[in-house]
């Protein structure tokens, strides 16, 4: 492998890692902060991909598609948490059944509305070209994905560690009653965090649509497995861990695919098996504190 190819594979791997991070970060946030296992997360991702496909088909911009995905995801997540999902706090079986059912319903609704076939998105007009980086060649959109992943990672860390809502949620994870006794409505904080996690899922789907070439109803089922693999490899509930695991899976998949195409899909499973054998707590386990 020459230097240019190595750089290309590296950047492509980072781009895939960014998508996987966006996907897993929402799941990790909701699990890490709310102790909530959300099996509908893949379906949210799939809806995000369709949002991109629908807006791109109408000639809309990437920015518009992302904005609609984020706003729709946030609003949907907020409402779902309020009317449905908050009933399952503290009961994993209820969470599993409720979100699995919700995911199936969302998938079927999308299948009814958009049809069972994969909808390809057109070549990107903006960010569709290739650029040379250190002798390698990479699509501009993939560089954009890397930047988006980094921006979301830093933004979420800032929100969690430096803002009042982040503080309230971290305190609320440990003792929600005490946060309320100190005069703050913690349930609202949980609703907001659920909205953020769902918005991230839709954003991940929208960002992934041009990368995967379109949107299909089966996308959610495929991606939820991958999201959980990354969450487990990173250390359940660990935000930093999910970022490291996503980048690892992205890079290893990219290099594996260069040598042996089917190897790319084996990477996540092999990595999870290896981590569970050697470091079952995950790459960066939560050391007492969540996130």
């Amino acid at each position, binding site marked *: 492998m020459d230097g240019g190819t190595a750089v290309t594979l590296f950047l492509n791997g980072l781009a895939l890692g960014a998508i996987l991070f966006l996907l897993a970060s929402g799941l990790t946030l909701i699990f890490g902060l709310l102790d909530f296992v959300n099996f509908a997360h893949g379906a949210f991702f799939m809806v995000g991909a369709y949002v991109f496909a629908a807006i791109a088909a109408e000639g809309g911009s990437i920015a518009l598609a992302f904005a609609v995905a984020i706003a729709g995801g946030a609003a949907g997540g907020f409402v779902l948490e309020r009317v449905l999902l908050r009933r399952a706090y503290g009961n994993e079986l209820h969470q599993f059944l409720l979100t699995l059912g919700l995911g199936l319903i969302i998938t079927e609704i999308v299948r009814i509305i958009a049809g069972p076939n994969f909808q390809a998105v057109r070549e990107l007009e903006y960010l569709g070209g290739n650029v040379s980086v250190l002798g390698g060649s990479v699509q501009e959109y993939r560089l954009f994905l890397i930047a988006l992943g980094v921006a979301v990672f830093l933004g979420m860390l800032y929100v969690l560690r430096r803002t009042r809502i982040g503080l309230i949620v971290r305190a609320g994870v440990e003792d929600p009653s*005490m946060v309320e006794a100190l005069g703050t409505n913690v349930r609202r904080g949980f609703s907001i965090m659920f909205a953020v996690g769902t918005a991230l899922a839709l954003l991940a789907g929208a960002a992934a649509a041009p990368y995967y070439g379109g949107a299909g109803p089966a996308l959610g089922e495929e991606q939820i497995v991958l999201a959980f693999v990354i969450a487990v490899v990173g250390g359940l509930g660990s935000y930093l861990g999910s970022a490291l695991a996503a980048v690892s899976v992205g890079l290893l998949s990219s290099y594996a695919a260069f040598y042996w195409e089917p190897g790319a899909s084996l990477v996540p499973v092999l990595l999870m098996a290896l981590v569970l054998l050697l470091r079952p707590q995950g790459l960066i386990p939560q050391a007492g504190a969540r996130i």
Partner: protein
Amino acid sequence: MPDAPLLALRGLKASIGPFRILEGVDLELREGETLVLLGRNGAGKTTTLRSIMGFVEAVDGSIELDGEAISGLSVDRVARRGVGYVPEDRGIFSTLTVEENLRVAAPPGPVWERVLDSFPVVRERLGARAGELSGGQQQMLAVARALLREPRLLLLDEPSTGLAPAVITELVETLRALQSGMTLLLVEQNLSVARQLGQRFTILEEGRTVASGPMRELTDDSSLTERFLALGGAEQRA
């Protein structure tokens, strides 16, 4: 009504799950006063505090703060009406730093300075993880955190539990210094602490108010102590 009590419980009944815990609690607390709630284990002292905060729903009777009913309000609303609460387990967020624990109550401001002046040990450990503090330091943090909200009424549940005698002395001194202008409802099994801090007492027995009066009556009236409190030597320690 200038003479209206700040807090009044009348015929308060409350259940936890299928169990009726409070069968009729009556008490009144005036502004600036410290009332000690006494009684054997299981008499309903903690449940009374938790009912006032809104953690436990009142089945019957009334809870009035400054003449307004507060039963049925959510916990955060009761807190915003000016009721501070320090639970028996202190409710420290152990994974957060001391400063973050305080920030949950209120963002830094002039009140912080005032409160931290009274709790130098908390000021010294602002950057430490709260879970690493000693029991006494955690209790100081819990009280300081509650005071940051400038409560009109502070509910304090067994603050001396699990603390060494020297630490209890320090805590009592700190609370005594803060007492002027503060209204305190204190649950305390340690009679020595109760006598040092309380002006009046109310005794609960099986979820009912059975006696109340000025603290000196309890000190002088050993039959009351024996009948309703039946405190052993450990609980009467100085």
